[in-house]
């Protein structure tokens, strides 16, 4: 049996705290590391300043092989689970329009559809002492959050963007949208979610000058949908004068 071929039964059998982290990097086609290479094959997901919505990729790769993809949720929980792509569509869906604000200054807006973190909590039942969450991706990226942050309004685990399934460039099959954090916190290609009792570092705090927290600070934004015209921002989720703010009802 290929232990990294995704099959729900096999997945649950092999699932444990130790396999959770070991599973992620091995089950993808991560053959080459182009992080320090300027000659990235053009078919790889990589940084591209595409109009309307720029693409950013810390670790260029070919994208997720769905034959081998599964979402593992474990750590300090009562019921560790493994979910297939189709399982995610059984969760209650929400949609919102929000900006992704890159720490490099630009922002772009999209309609995002997905589920809230509460949906997963109900299933796995984390230990009360599990106050932190560590998320890993298929491109060897990783992020770290306080559990409370993931339960904030307008935080979505996203499956669809602008009415279509997420594209490969934007994190297919599953990504996080957390509009009050810089883009690097909005991890793409999610493969595992682990509950912990202490915080971990994230990729860019380990590899660059970026904070683990990543809250959008007050300053200036250059929205791509306004020709990068500089506009002041207050910090937190970015709303420009031409953006519609959500109603008082949370999550709408």
């Amino acid at each position, binding site marked *: 049996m290929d232990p990294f071929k995704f099959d729900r039964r096999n997945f649950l059998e092999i699932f444990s705290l130790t396999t959770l982290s070991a599973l992620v990097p091995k089950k993808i086609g991560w053959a080459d590391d182009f992080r320090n290479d300027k000659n990235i094959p053009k078919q790889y997901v990589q940084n591209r300043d595409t109009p309307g919505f720029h693409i950013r990729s810390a670790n260029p790769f070919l994208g997720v092989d769905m034959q081998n993809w599964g979402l593992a949720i474990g750590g300090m929980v009562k019921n560790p689970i493994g979910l297939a792509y189709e399982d995610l569509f059984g969760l209650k869906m929400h949609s919102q329009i929000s900006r992704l604000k890159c720490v490099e200054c630009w922002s772009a807006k999209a309609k995002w559809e997905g589920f809230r973190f509460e949906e997963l909590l109900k299933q796995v039942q984390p230990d009360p002492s599990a106050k932190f969450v560590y998320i890993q991706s298929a491109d060897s990226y990783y992020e770290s959050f306080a559990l409370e942050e993931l339960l904030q309004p307008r935080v979505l685990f996203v499956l669809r963007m602008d009415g279509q399934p997420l594209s490969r460039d934007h994190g297919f099959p599953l990504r996080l949208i957390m509009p009050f954090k810089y883009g690097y916190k909005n991890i793409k290609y999610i493969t595992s979610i682990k509950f912990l009792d202490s915080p971990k570092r994230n990729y860019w705090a380990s590899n660059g000058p970026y*904070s683990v927290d990543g809250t959008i*600070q007050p300053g200036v934004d250059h929205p791509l949908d306004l020709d990068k015209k500089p506009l002041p921002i*207050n910090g937190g989720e970015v709303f420009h*004068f031409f953006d519609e703010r959500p109603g008082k009802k949370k999550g709408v």
Partner: protein
Amino acid sequence: MKGHIFITFLFLLLISLSSCDSRSVKQISVEVPAGTVVPDGMVYIPAGEFIMGDAEEPGTQGGKLVKTVAYLIDLYEVTHEDYKKFRPEHSFHPKRASWPVALVPYADAESFCQAEGKRLPSETEWEKAARGTDGRKWPWKIYIDHPNNGFSGFMPEPVDKRQDWISPYGVYGMGHNVWEWTTDDYTPVGREGKFKILRGGLLQSHLTIKFSPVWFRNWMNPDGKLNFIGFRCAKDV
């Protein structure tokens, strides 16, 4: 002394800027009227005029003279340790006990102050406590280089760490550490919704120095829970 007994608060760290430590902030000598009790951890701000806003900064009070009554304001921003007494479930790393509490929405900040027998300050009170009466741009008066170099995050510090950055009334954290909730409402021109004015500095974040003048105003949805927003309390005399 007949009639009134005056207690003198002298937050004098330096007689003049040219002697001793050039980074110390010259303090205003404040006389507290007899019978006025100044609780520990608060500063008495006397009645009188001060210069509010800046003539070259639209959206501020334009540098006009504004008069206040006397009031008290917290010497420091509210810390994690302080907040835990009010909300026992509040958790934080032990090493951060004296950092300013953040991620607290307006209503919770207001409740904390009320539980202490205090209230949140208005932005007028905040600005006067930050700049005194001489119209200075920075709480510490003299320009200092922006200390950061591109880090994307926000780095709070113990609320009592920067004695050389205090205001002329001796108040800490008016040009750095967290931004702070004030009671003033704000609705941007052409928009709907009621926001609250934030005041403060953020000097130690990656932001440019332009966010630290004493007249700089930010505004936020009162539900906002962000890592750069904290608060301090004030009190009527």
